[in-house]
């Protein structure tokens, strides 16, 4: 009898993934009334309802989630991973064809040199360059008080450009194309995540014997239930599902942050000639940025109170553009001059070596002549997840941190997260680690948390510094601008920090 039983058992095992029968067998045998019955049952399940297993499930197929897949596809250690991408956005499955003649989308990102090099290494940047994009080598930042301005030039730090502005859909498509070039196995689930169990302990696995799956399948895996009724298993779940991350909520990770009670109006505008500089002016109501987008287009990110944003959204094109031109010119205050407060002399003893842009004069941004897209309004908030990693779970991009869009840093922080996580996964695989192991994932958290918090604090500080219109503070701000414009080591470190190089924005 026993011999027969044994034979049935080993036959069953031969059909499946090889595994040690110890715990599965003991549990199932104990729970069932007949070994044979259990074998039959399990055999049927082997053929019918075993949920697919993946190494990594990326929830959210936006720029950051796809960037992670793209980085994983580009490294020898990780290119064999089986990756599932869960996103209900239909654009993911059908390859969206972008035509260069299409009107530019107002959703754009300023990609820093550091992010560009990540995308270049992953083979995605060449696709960005095939579409509309705009490198810019100059940046001018000034404020409404007329007390200060700063000009930055890529040549200050011996670079060709400070950054590149590209439409989000161009970046997204470039990342998808580069994954398609590789033989990386990704499966896209056009669905939403409805429930998640991380199965972090073997105890819960053993106790949860009601599940029909064999233990070795659901063992060291998180189970994800999708809105189409299917479920999948993954050793690591990556929450790349944005600021309102469902993964973060399901995992019970709390966030700290606040809403700015400010909105940003985003739109595309046209000039009569090409714009080659990034402009940012701080107004008492919030900053306005004019970013070059290639051809004669520019992108506007204009922060203001929710009431004002709604008003400006409903204005006629002509009136809206008048507002934009005024905000970028004389609106709220005069143009700054270099001689105010004598700051130039004040800082002259400090000039260790002259940077090129120190001698550049204040310029007025090119006039906006036409509105080239609809006006979109987004509320602004700052949010930071208290933890980025737990067993079998990590958060990347906006799911981990939502920042003020002030310097277009959001997506760069996200690309930085994806890059760092992909390296740490590769490191784990090289050493045979379980990629869902918390020790490994905490390395990612340690690497990214400090970098992200630093950038968030700086952007938040800028935001706060300009939300108060108070005389003495204005002068201080003006002096700070002058300082930033004339003290070359400080200026260089500001530029390299904003370009995504990991150095604190302090001296040297």
């Amino acid at each position: 009898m026993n011999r027969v039983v044994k034979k049935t058992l080993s036959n069953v095992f031969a059909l499946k993934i090889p595994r040690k029968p110890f715990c599965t067998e003991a549990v199932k045998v104990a729970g069932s009334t007949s070994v044979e019955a259990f074998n039959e049952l399990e055999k049927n399940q082997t053929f019918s309802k075993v949920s697919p297993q993946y190494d990594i499930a990326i929830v959210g197929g936006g720029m950051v989630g796809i960037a992670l897949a793209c980085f994983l596809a580009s490294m020898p250690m990780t290119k064999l991973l089986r990756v599932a991408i869960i996103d209900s956005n239909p654009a993911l499955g059908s390859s969206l064809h972008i035509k260069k003649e299409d009107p530019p989308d107002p959703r754009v990102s300023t990609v820093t040199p550091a992010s560009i090099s990540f995308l270049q290494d992953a083979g995605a940047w060449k696709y960005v360059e095939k579409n509309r994009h705009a490198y810019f080598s100059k940046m001018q930042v000034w404020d409404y008080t007329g007390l200060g301005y700063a000009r930055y030039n890529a040549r200050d730090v011996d670079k060709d450009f400070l950054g590149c502005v590209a439409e989000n859909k161009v970046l997204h498509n470039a990342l998808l194309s580069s994954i398609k070039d590789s033989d990386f196995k990704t499966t896209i689930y056009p669905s939403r995540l409805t429930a998640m169990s991380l199965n972090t302990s073997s105890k819960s696995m053993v106790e949860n014997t009601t599940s029909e799956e064999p233990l070795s399948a659901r063992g060291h895996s998180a189970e994800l239930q999708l809105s189409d009724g299917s479920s999948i298993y993954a050793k690591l779940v990556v929450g790349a599902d944005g600021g309102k991350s469902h993964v973060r909520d399901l995992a019970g990770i709390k966030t700290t942050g606040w809403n700015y009670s400010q909105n940003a109006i985003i739109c595309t505008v046209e000039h009569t000639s090409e714009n080659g500089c990034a402009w940012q002016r701080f107004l008492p109501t919030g900053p306005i940025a004019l970013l070059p987008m290639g051809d004669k287009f520019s992108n506007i990110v204009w922060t203001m109170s929710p009431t004002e944003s709604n008003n400006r959204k409903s204005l006629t094109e002509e009136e809206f553009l008048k507002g934009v031109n005024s905000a970028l010119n004389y609106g709220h205050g005069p143009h700054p001059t270099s001689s105010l407060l004598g700051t130039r002399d004040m800082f002259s003893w400090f000039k260790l070596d002259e940077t090129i842009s120190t001698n550049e004069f204040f310029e007025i941004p090119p006039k906006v002549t036409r509105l080239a897209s609809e006006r979109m309004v987004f509320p602004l908030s700052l949010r930071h997840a208290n933890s980025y990693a737990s067993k079998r779970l990590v958060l990347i991009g906006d799911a981990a941190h939502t920042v003020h869009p002030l310097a277009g840093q959001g997506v760069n922080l996200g690309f930085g997260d994806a890059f760092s996580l992909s390296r740490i996964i590769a490191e784990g695989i090289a050493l045979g680690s379980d990629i869902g192991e918390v020790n490994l994932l905490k390395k990612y958290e340690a690497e990214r948390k400090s970098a992200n918090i630093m950038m968030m604090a700086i952007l938040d500080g800028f935001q706060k510094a300009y939300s108060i219109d108070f005389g003495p503070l204005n002068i201080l701000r003006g002096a700070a601008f002058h300082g930033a414009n004339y003290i070359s080591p400080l200026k260089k470190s500001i530029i390299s920090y904003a370009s995504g190089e990991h150095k604190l924005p302090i001296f040297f």
Partner: protein
Amino acid sequence: MASNHVRNLNRIITIHRIFHNPLLNARSFFSDASLPQTHPSHPSSLKDNELAKFASIADTWWDSEGPFKPLHVMNPTRLTFIRSALCRHFKKDPYSAKPFEGLKIVDVGCGGGILSEPLARLGATVTGVDAVEKNIKIAQLHAGLDPATSTIEFCCTTAEKLVEEGRKFDAVMALEVIEHVADPAEFCKSLAALTDPDGATVISTINRSMRAYATAIVAAEYVLRWLPKGTHEWSSFLTPEELVLILQRAGINVEEMAGFVYNPVTGRWSLSDDISVNFIAFGTKSKNT
């Protein structure tokens, strides 16, 4: 097949021995399961409880913040050394995700399987042995949960018994074990006997130095309480020279050695030339032995 059957039976017996369950003995349990007509399945819930209890021990063992934290923290560093040494010796592609494919490796003193599992993920065919039955159960339970590691063969046995069985391996690992064995020279002979000609042996242990006394015993056992008091006995530690010598007598030439250095600020271990406390040695068995 018959031996498999015996092993399965043994496993079940062992669980019962561990929990000293007076209600059941192994034989009656097995027949309960296979002959339900004669015995209703009343013991099944009890069985589940035991397994759950056992699983929680495994969770503690594998908790990277739990009592075995020092081992978990040190593990990636040991694997860095092993990966590079074995890739070089067996001419495997260091850029492969599974460089150990095709290698038969035995992990002597495997504990809960902390080294066996990564070796299996790196593609090796792994046998893990430990003299402590509880460890083998933990290892089996944990490895069984992942298809990538469920192929590991775990046996409650010793290196000497494997030698008697005539087993041979491409690589023999004995990490943090030799300081706990009664006769290190004999143990090394057994490791050598398990190693295929032209195979590799990797041993890691603690040096018998004053610094090792201060860190591995005073700091780890008394100050930081990483390890239970009495885990290590200083006099049974081997110096690198002694280890090289006894391995040489057993027919293994040590080709590479490295130290592990703990950085209390980052809380991480790294490989270094400093072999004054923890060290790891890689040796090969010459073809003619």
